[in-house]
């Protein structure tokens, strides 16, 4: 078992652990704490330089009200769902199939195709900014939710395929061979045997992709121009005034934007942690 559980370590290490764990936790949580505090404040406190002190007014509800009334925040949130859920379904569905094929069939270019999928993960997406923008524009999908979804599906499928392929590869081959002996068609094998067995992997993948896509800011700003398709992460900037950066509203809006992935995480916590290690250890 790695890492060694802390209570089996020397006593000195245990004390060091007990001292530094809270300290590092606090350091990690300070920014989030700052956002929470700022979301309660009014702009006055911020201008007066009262960033970390006790807020002079409790304005969380009025900030929330402003966030939802000053800007089309509800529309942005809906857009986020419209982007995230189809992407999640699309990427996971495709990768189940590619993963199955790459794990089970021996053909000449198998490894090469697999490597192409993996290599896709290593392309920094900033490089793709201009070509992808051009491409979506030429196809006529620029500034549409469909365009954003299709791109996300294409880009996420690489990682998902790696994940699913390794998971399916680790399943006992005998199951598939037995099914074949019984005369099941390949599709039937995929549908009746592989899919049920990969349920934990699919769940983990869904959670991962949901959070990835929900938190995407870069592509939303590259591929979307108007309010009609803007997801919430990019829509937050509309909370700023003409002259003023409204830090208090931005903080409140960020918290609102963070709620769905956080809920998703807590509901599917088990799968999420399993998901992070699944692809890494098998293969």
């Amino acid at each position, binding site marked *: 078992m790695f890492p060694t559980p802390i209570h089996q370590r020397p006593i000195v290490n245990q004390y060091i652990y007990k001292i530094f764990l809270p300290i590092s936790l606090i350091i990690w949580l300070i920014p989030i704490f700052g956002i929470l505090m700022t979301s309660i404040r009014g702009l*006055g406190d911020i*201008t*007066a*330089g009262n960033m970390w002190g006790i807020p002079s007014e409790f304005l969380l509800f009025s900030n929330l009200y402003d966030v939802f009334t*000053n800007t089309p925040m509800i529309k942005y949130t809906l857009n986020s769902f419209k982007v995230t859920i189809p992407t999640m379904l699309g990427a996971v569905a495709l990768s189940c199939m590619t993963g199955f094929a790459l794990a089970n069939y021996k053909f000449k270019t198998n490894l090469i195709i697999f490597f192409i999928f993996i290599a896709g993960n290593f392309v920094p997406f900033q490089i793709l900014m201009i070509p992808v923008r051009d491409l979506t*524009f030429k196809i006529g999908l620029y500034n549409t939710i469909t365009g954003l979804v299709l791109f996300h599906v294409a880009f996420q499928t690489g990682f998902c395929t790696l994940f699913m392929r390794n998971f399916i590869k680790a399943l006992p081959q005998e199951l598939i061979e037995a099914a074949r002996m019984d005369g099941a068609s390949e599709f039937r094998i995929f549908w009746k045997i592989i899919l049920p067995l990969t349920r934990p992997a699919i769940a983990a993948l869904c959670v991962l992709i949901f959070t990835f896509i929900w938190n995407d800011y870069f592509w939303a700003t590259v591929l979307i121009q108007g309010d009609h398709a803007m997801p919430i992460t990019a829509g937050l900037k509309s909370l700023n*005034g003409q002259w*003023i950066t409204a830090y208090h509203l931005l903080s409140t809006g960020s918290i609102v934007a963070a709620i769905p992935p956080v809920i998703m995480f807590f509901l599917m916590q088990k799968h999420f942690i399993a998901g992070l290690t699944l692809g890494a250890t098998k293969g």
Partner: protein
Amino acid sequence: MKKVIISLIMMFGIISSTSFAGTLVINTDTSDAAPKKAFEYIIKKFEEENPDVTVKWNVFDHEGYKQSIRNFLNTDPPDVANWYAGNRMLPFVRAGLFEDVSDIWKDSGWVDGNLSENMEHAKKSMTIGGKQWGIPYTYYQWGVYYRKDLFTANGISVPKTWDDFVAACATLKAAGITPITIGSKYLWTTAGVFDYLNLRTNGYEFHMDLTLGKVPYTDPKVQAVFDKWDELVKPGYFLENHAALSWQEALTPMVNGEAAMYVMGNFAVAPLKEAGLRDSNLGFFQFPEITPGIPMAEEAPTDTVHIPSKAKNKTDAKRFLIFMSRADVQEEINKILGQLPINKNSSVKKGDPFLKAGLNMLNNAYAMAQFYDRDAPAQMASEGMKGFQEYMSNPDRRQKILERLEKVRQKVYK
């Protein structure tokens, strides 16, 4: 980019080809909350007063508009478009894309069109080649915002001349207070200071010549501006770490009583008041005189409406421009915007001393500069403001900076 624009144009082509007589197409960049609300209000009011006209209003993103206007003016112009006064409209006027609306200004039979009297002070910034090219509907003043209580505590009265101003800075500095706060992280704040120093040292005409690229940056008159600036920068009268702060963050020392003055636009008042300053301890004064006898021009970025020369419905467009110039309409728009009406017969929200002071100052101004980044072309403005910020951090590099700006000038204004 080009393709995006073409598709936008095509989109608008479809929209506007469905328009019929009595339809007035208005394009604006009022994507921010308050300006959007103001336009919603006036368009509704205009439609109520002119039931025969239907307004089709397209709101563009504020930043994107700067690109899109170049294209829609050429290919598929609306009947009215909003834009900015002064040199910002020069390229469109030169290219023949804006309609000459001098007749509205001259009161030639248009009801309520007596603008030459009501907006005389703003006429210069709307005039190119002796003609007027649009109607201004809102602006706001720039000047010096200061802490009254800090002035009183140190026995300083509102400075009218440059010597008084420098002396006031010296007194404040000696008392351990930063005389002038500024946040130059995003550069533009430095241009406010430069503009005023130039307007006061050399006057409006020279400032316009400089921003139009007719004068080299190495000109002795520009040097004279920096001599004045030296008097503030070298003794350290500006906030020390200004390059690390946004304009908004630089408000904090003023709120906390650590800094006394801010050369800023009137939009600074709202956050300052929200942070606890009151009319009793926050004041405003006009940027002091430097060269005696030079008429006082002010910095007042002005928003305007124009008729594209290729507009289809110019009759109703003119009705709209006249409507926008009316005292009562400007009063309402600017109540929503929290800014100043240009029409002299408009009043401002009662009980706001800053708007009142601004109105008073601008109504009597010799001319209006539009701010460095509107008066100078974008490329020059961005290099210029970089130079100003560098100078404020390292005043010794002044000569090198000016030589560099001169090189940029020669490239930009070819």
